[in-house]
């Protein structure tokens, strides 16, 4: 028995290595991964960029130098209506956007997969209740609920990430539920049950490893969506609040003077676009790499 598990572990390690080999063969996905890593490094080193490259703090304003074009007055990418450095704010904004989307995605995955597994495993009443609840959430445009919630509670962005997950778990929970049901009916699950495996053990040892690739692919689709939704909320003035920059509230600020400084609209949106696109492409690569049916 002991030995079997270690074999299983080694096999799954082998799977990961094989998936990585297949992923590497997908040139587009590898380039996308490089772009994403560049964006992450850019955002995480916001403090360094502020100290060593731009020389501006993200809150530091020079009203006399407001709305500088890129390159003017030492602003590499220009300045906004308060004379704050756009490059510095892009980096800090990226940190907020990326951190937010990652937190929200992890929380959503946790809630969604737990609910999905419970529903798929328990079936009957529990299943029906949970899924009807999911239906309710799926039938409301999530942005309108988000607008409602954030206009009333004005959440900070940690709380906002939690609210995202509370509203958006149904998508992944349906996928996980479907997968759980199909795995549960496999003969090897029956065999494990006959061998005296507990439900917790079945889920941890057999169901979870099988659902993991799907969850990973789902995350690659949903993180871009979360980045865009957070930007949308901030753009409406309901998400990340100034002076803390986020790509969304930078766009909000810049839309007031797009006549003179179009780059201030272009740049934050471009960051959102590049981030979302690269994660999407990585997701496509992951899907090809993780689906064993695609082999050869």
């Amino acid at each position, binding site marked *: 028995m002991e030995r079997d598990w270690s074999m299983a572990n080694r096999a799954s390690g082998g799977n990961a290595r094989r998936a990585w080999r297949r992923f590497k063969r997908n040139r587009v996905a590898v380039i996308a991964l490089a772009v994403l890593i560049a964006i992450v490094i850019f955002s995480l080193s916001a403090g360094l960029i502020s100290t060593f490259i731009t020389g501006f703090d993200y809150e530091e304003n020079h009203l006399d130098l407001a709305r500088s074009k890129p390159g003017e007055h030492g602003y590499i990418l220009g300045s906004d209506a308060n004379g704050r450095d756009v490059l510095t704010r892009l980096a800090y904004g990226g940190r907020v956007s990326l951190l937010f989307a990652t937190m929200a995605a992890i929380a959503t995955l946790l809630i969604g997969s737990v609910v999905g597994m419970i529903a798929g495993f328990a079936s009957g009443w529990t299943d029906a209740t949970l899924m009807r609840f999911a239906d309710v959430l799926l039938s409301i*445009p999530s942005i309108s609920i988000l*607008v*409602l919630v954030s206009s009333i509670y004005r959440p900070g962005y940690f709380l906002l990430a939690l609210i995202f997950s509370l509203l958006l778990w149904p998508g992944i929970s349906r996928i996980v539920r479907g997968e759980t049901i199909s795995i549960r009916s496999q003969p090897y699950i029956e065999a494990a049950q006959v061998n005296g495996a507990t439900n917790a053990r079945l889920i941890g040892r057999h169901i979870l490893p099988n659902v993991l690739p799907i969850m990973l692919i789902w995350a690659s689709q949903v993180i871009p969506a979360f980045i865009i939704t957070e930007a949308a909320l901030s*753009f*409406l*003035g309901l998400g990340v609040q100034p002076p803390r920059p986020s790509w969304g509230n930078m*766009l909000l600020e810049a839309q007031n003077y797009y006549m003179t400084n*179009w780059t201030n609209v272009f740049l934050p949106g471009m960051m959102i676009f590049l981030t979302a696109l690269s994660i999407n492409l990585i997701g496509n690569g992951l899907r090809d790499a993780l689906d064993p049916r695609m082999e050869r």
Partner: protein
Amino acid sequence: MIGFIVRRLLQMVPLLLGVTFLTFAIVNFVPGSPVSTMQLNPKARPEDIERITQNLGLDKPWYERYLNWLGDLLRGDMGLSLTNYTPVTDRILGVLPNTLLLTCTSLALALLIAVPLGVISAVKHNSWFDQIATVIVTALAAIPSFWMGLLLIILFAVKFKDWGLPYLPASGMQDMRSAGGIADRIEHLILPASALAIVQIAGWTRFIRASMLETIGQDYIRTAQAKGLPARAVMYGHAFRNALLPLVTLVGLALPEVFGGAYLIEQIFAWNGLGRLTLNATQSNDYTLIMGATLFFAFLTMFGNLLADILYSIADPRISAGRARR
């Protein structure tokens, strides 16, 4: 058929209850009440606060308030707007046509581009056309709609004007001076509808391509090919029609996203619709209006789903028959 529709309507009841309760809970289970800010105001007299509390029914337990509110809702009464004390229902219905005009136009526009793109991609599977289309679609999927809207304004309204080219209006629904003939209204519709359409194209194209590919793999397509029908007749006569069937349902399912997109686009283009109304309401803390609009979005979405289901069961008799047997 009738049975199917009735059953489908009955299925909506718990959904409606859920949606209304959720909305009610979000607004009403806020720590503190709408009058708590008034209590901090030294100019507000205690008896006024008392009166407002009673008028709003805030002295009753939450389930009683929910049932009362639900009863009003059933009669089409969503309460009065807290900013100008007009009925919320009237204000919503007043701007609803604008939102529907924008969303329906964008939907039509998106399908007009996505259907040919998806079908040709599938018919010429793995060709250069398919590959380029896939690249475009992947890129489109990553574009935030509000950014797209701003870029369209900058290019077609601002830069085109600078360059002396024919340009489009940047915002609003009609020209204030000429008070809007049909041509003028269409001119104002082009940019917002395009911005909203562009972000939808990706999803539709992917879906249509996948659906078409699946249909092409079916036995009856092979039969049609085997009996010597020309490829064109097989693809566009047999496969195309069947591949588009599921689209009906998907249009219904995509409605939350379409309406969600309208939220932002209306704001950018100063389009006087439901989204803009809601957002203005959030800025003035007009909770009854926000609640009403949120519910309305939800109702609209559910109604769209229902319509899609019914249309689908008309288009594909297997569906309602299959459900009836169960």
